[in-house]
């Protein structure tokens, strides 16, 4: 069943909702979405298997675990990247000073609006749109390949929207873009090509000067 994106509660949709397109149903996971913490300012955690959660804590929290995590990442990503990348690297220099630039975030950490459909945890190449005013308590993290404990305490670790708003207020950057983009775990890199291009098109249409990519 396909679903069409809708404005989340308490947020006003733009004239044209940027990702108004069909996506796979996330209703099964939506049903299982639970609140991770009583702290209103924290994102919600989409629960994953407890054994996996413990393994991820070991990977993040120990030197040996990090070595294993890096080996896994290389083993999964490198063969795919050899096929997906080309000899020519896109290049676009910054065309205006930072204090005049519009800045947007793209994260692959599984961050999305709490009221939006969660990412499929096994692999999901769709993306979610996050408005510039979103607060931590309005967000959720749906991802099963990294330890989210600290990101739930401070979502700026994987999605520094609050930091960007502060820098806008200080005049360091010109403007925080109206819309930002979240991806979840994707096992086949080729599946990301089309949605990646769509996000690029949306960022261009929004006259974003600088896009910052933040992984998990």
């Amino acid at each position, binding site marked *: 069943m396909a679903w069409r994106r809708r404005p989340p509660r308490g947020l006003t949709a733009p004239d044209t909702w940027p990702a108004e397109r069909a996506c796979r149903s996330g209703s099964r996971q939506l049903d299982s979405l639970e609140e991770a913490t009583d702290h209103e300012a924290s994102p919600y955690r989409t629960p994953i298997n407890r054994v996996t959660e413990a393994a*991820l804590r070991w*990977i*993040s*929290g120990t030197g040996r675990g*990090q070595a294993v*995590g*890096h080996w896994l*990442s*290389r083993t999964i*990503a*490198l063969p795919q*990247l*050899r096929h997906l*990348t*080309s*000899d*020519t*690297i*896109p*290049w*676009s*220099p*910054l*065309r*205006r*000073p*930072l204090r005049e630039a519009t800045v947007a975030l793209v994260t692959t*950490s599984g961050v999305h609006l709490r009221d939006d459909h969660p990412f499929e945890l096994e692999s999901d190449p769709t993306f979610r749109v996050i408005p510039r005013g979103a607060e931590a308590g309005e967000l959720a993290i749906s991802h099963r*390949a*990294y*330890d*989210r*404990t*600290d*990101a739930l*305490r*401070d979502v*700026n*670790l*994987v999605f*520094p929207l609050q*930091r*960007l708003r502060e*820098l806008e207020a*200080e005049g*360091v*950057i010109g403007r925080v873009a109206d819309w930002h983009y979240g991806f979840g775990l994707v096992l086949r890199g080729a599946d990301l090509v089309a949605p990646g291009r769509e996000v*690029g098109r949306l*960022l*261009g249409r929004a006259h*974003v*000067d*600088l*896009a*910052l*990519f*933040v*992984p*998990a």
Partner: protein
Amino acid sequence: MTTVGLALVREVAVAARAPRLLFVHWPFGHALGEPGKVEQQRAVLRDMFSMARRALRPGLVVDLPYRWRRESYPPISDWTADGEAFEAALARAPEGQTSVGGSGPGRL
């Protein structure tokens, strides 16, 4: 549109052949550092801005030297200047020839 990315696995960062990447030696889920460490997070963002201004060739991967939980991050007073750590890391970045797509490299 200019893009700058963070990376947590160096070999993957190099293989990704993205326009500009900053590699941080930190655990997964901590691309901007530690929870609640605002100055640390701002330092990483400043380095990303510096990368947007300073990278002169596509495919550049710069290794940021920050140690996990063993660094101090003083407040940033001048956002138009690059951080010392970034300056040193950029100077250490390997030279290399890459093909350029789109418009040529430039600097403000």
